[in-house]
């Protein structure tokens, strides 16, 4: 029973990675917004780069998800 509780605590701690990912995503989109606000004509060039950064950063969050799943469901 203690092991089950420890697994749940561990999985909860693993979600702390979302702290960094949240900061990073906010940084990406705030930079994207201010770049487009400074130079609206560059929007079509900047938007795919922003999406790429979003996808790459989001995958870090999903690594934390995988770690949490491994902790929860591995025997």
């Amino acid at each position: 029973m203690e092991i089950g509780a420890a697994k749940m605590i561990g999985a909860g701690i693993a979600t702390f990675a979302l702290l960094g990912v949240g900061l990073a995503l906010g940084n990406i989109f705030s930079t994207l917004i201010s770049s487009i606000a400074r130079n609206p004509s560059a929007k079509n060039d900047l938007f795919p780069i922003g999406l790429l950064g979003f996808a790459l950063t989001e995958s870090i969050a999903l690594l934390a998800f995988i770690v949490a799943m491994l902790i929860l469901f591995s025997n």
Partner: protein
Amino acid sequence: MANIDPLYQFKIKTLVPIHLGGVDLSFTNASLFMLVTTAVICLLTHFSTRKRCLIPGRFQVGAESFFHFIADMIKDYVGAEGVRFFPYILSLFLFVLFGNLVGLIPYTFTFTSHIIVTFALASFVLVGVTVAGFSKHGAGFFKVFFPSGIPLYVAPLLVPVEIISYLSRSISLSVRLFANMVAGHVMLKIFAYFAVLLAGSAFLPAAILPTALNVAIIGFEFLVAILQAYVFAILTCIYLNDALNLH
């Protein structure tokens, strides 16, 4: 109601058992949906470009826009040399894209949510890119592990790091796609279970909330499915550029 298992949807079921010399080569639901995806891609591209009108119809515009999208991507990120790899990158992109999209239809199976599938795709990318780099540069390809303009005394530190980061590309490329698909589908199932549990309880009207959220999430999942196929193709282009045009 007792057994809620959001991971049940990823279970591989054997459809036609095939055992050859102790190796399990059974035809599973994953193989079935890979065939379905390939068939969808072939039928769409075949029937949309069959007539080859000068003024394209709706479907022909769709097929041509896939073509131009990948062609422009290769031109931007790799250059003229990358055109030789156009069929590979286009088929990789379409396979991942339609695999993700077919998997979003209810009661289907998402084969990109299995790490072995995405890891095989990413390993082919890594091996293919390395072979392309060696066939172009010969032994000079090893310069990819030592960027120019760096003082020589940091080489003992930098070269192992570069080698590890080069080899871990196949892992990061595969885990990115796999984790995105798994996380999205698990999230859909969890909110669906919320709705079912609420509908069976005294709070029946509250079941509308998780249902509405599920509708929003499935829209987001379509974005993720397309975005991850795009990211897979664009990272393949970037890796190819690193190998062909040494930095």
